[in-house]
């Protein structure tokens, strides 16, 4: 299943509706559904925030590959942003020392089994693999 979405936070309900179709079709567990929604939202909103000038829509595709779900997010006209190369956050800091930013990607890396990133022809391609319960 593949669909494109306008580059806006207000597209999130449509993104969730799209994911819901896949979740229902594949009868994913609540835990897998949570992880899929979480990873999709965090990457999608990151692209909205950090590549706002691109006029292109953001394309999501989600497929079943045996025991895994594969989520692919393609961002056109994008500068390279490789989430796998982000430094680890220090989450043991006290409240007053914590700074916003980077938490969503950190959590996606904790929750998703495999994240691959390619930057080809000015496109960022994120491929996330989740082994299903």
């Amino acid at each position, binding site marked *: 299943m593949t669909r494109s979405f306008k580059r806006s936070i207000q597209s*999130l*309900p449509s993104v969730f509706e799209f994911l819901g179709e896949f979740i229902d079709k594949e009868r994913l567990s609540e*835990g897998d559904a*949570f992880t899929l929604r*979480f990873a999709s*939202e965090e990457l999608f909103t990151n692209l909205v925030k950090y590549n706002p000038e691109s006029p292109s829509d953001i394309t999501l595709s989600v497929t079943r590959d045996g025991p895994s779900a594969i989520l692919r997010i393609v961002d056109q006209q994008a500068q390279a942003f490789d989430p796998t190369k982000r430094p680890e956050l220090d989450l043991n800091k*006290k409240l007053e020392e914590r700074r916003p930013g980077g*938490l*969503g990607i950190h959590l996606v890396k904790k929750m998703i089994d495999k994240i691959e990133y390619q930057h080809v022809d000015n496109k960022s391609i994120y491929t996330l693999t989740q082994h299903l319960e």
Partner: protein
Amino acid sequence: MFSMTVGQSGEILLSGRFDAAQAEEALKTFNGLTSSAIVNFKDLEYISSAGLGVLIATQRRLKNTGQELKLINLNSHIRDVFRYARFDLIFKIE
């Protein structure tokens, strides 16, 4: 869908999905809090980092005046997110 209601006892009940599309409105409501409060997650299915950001901003503001949020009834998936984010160091969670 997301909703946030404040009960007579001052307890805040969250329900639905607390995502980035809801964060701005939710922050306005949390900004009205001036004293300690219980946030009940009983009907909350989902939260993302945007929702976590609203909670941590509120906790930081309240702690400056000796107040705080206490979180109750988190489902197992949300509890995992709090654990991965180490928010269990920052909030009282029951």
